[in-house]
């Protein structure tokens, strides 16, 4: 799970164009990082590319925090 955490944080930081060190599991995607509908398309694609998952537009809209996103990914592996 720790590896998933690290990879998801790296991807989230890259999409939000911030330093990975500033992103924590409790960080909120929309409010703290401004990853809204458009950013989430890239987020889903990069997660799918990294983990070999298939994440729909509907699924990627739901996570509020990085922790939620980790949970989404973990549930698909």
């Amino acid at each position, binding site marked *: 799970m720790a590896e998933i955490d690290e990879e998801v944080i790296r991807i989230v930081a890259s999409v939000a164009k911030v330093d990975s060190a500033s992103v924590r599991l409790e960080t909120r995607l929309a409010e703290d990082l401004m990853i809204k509908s458009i950013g989430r398309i890239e987020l889903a*694609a*990069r997660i799918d590319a990294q983990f070999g998952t298939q994440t729909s537009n509907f699924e990627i809209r739901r996570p509020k925090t990085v922790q939620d996103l980790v949970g989404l990914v973990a549930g698909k592996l």
Partner: protein
Amino acid sequence: MDLVERARAQGGSVPRSIVFPEGTDPTIQEAAVALAKTGRVRPIVLDAPAGLAGRLAPYLPDPEACTVADCSNDPRCRRYAELYAARHDIPQEAAEIIARRPLYFAAMMVAEGDAHGMVAGILSATEDVIVATHLAIGREHGAAVPCSFYLLDIPGREGDEGQLLAFTDPAMNPRPDASELADIATAVAAAVEAMLGWTPRVALLSFSTHGSADDPAVDVVRDACDELRTRGVTFAFDGEMQADAALDERVARRKLGDSPVGGDANILVCPNLDAANIGAKLIQHFTGATAYGPFLLGFAAPVSDLSRSATLDDVVGTALLVASLPLSGHRS
């Protein structure tokens, strides 16, 4: 003249390619055949179930009249991904995943001139269609706020444009301010003029008519009318007014007096997305109206976001009208 004839008359003699990314839907499959027969639209159907091309072939006027494409194996996918990756500064690997998604592949086809327009939304949420359009096609250069409108074909309506009425904005702007409301009115007036040759008569709707009520919500509509006057737009408009004053001449005479559009409006501008979306659905429900669109405006190419309840007639008419919309030609 029905809508098919009207759209044919508006367009040139060469059929325009319209891409449908939701080929798994039976209504889209039926619409593709019906559109191919009009000679006005050359449908491109994506994400189709195996064997669809063979099943459609006996119903087509010629084999080229409709294309069934597999975007997961299409050679254009790599090029679209490269363009998308460069445009959005994301890794190629992620861009390829995006470009293989039918909605994005379709939008990239339109962006790269491989199709004239896209008709989507029968299986996708409005937000997904709008985001794909925004990311792959982009905004029209110099366009104001993006917006949308329905063209409603209402049984029993006897307006100057027959049964048709334009209704905005049912899909894109939840709470437009006065300037945005003026932008929406202007964009829709220009679109229906280009699409159908109408002379626009725009009513900006409210629960108040010319000062009959005071409320911040009324002020927004009133300010939008002031904004249109300041801009010196050339189309006829009036507001704020109630829907009955916009559509019923007897009520218009009583409530508005002398008005350039009262009782005879052909474009209704609702004050917010709630009113437009609810109003359009109520008209459809109670009158059996056909709803063409919503057509998305403010993007660099014609796109329509169908309702998920769209019927065969809705899809066919919408595609014909998308085909008749001009390309803006410039992306910002």
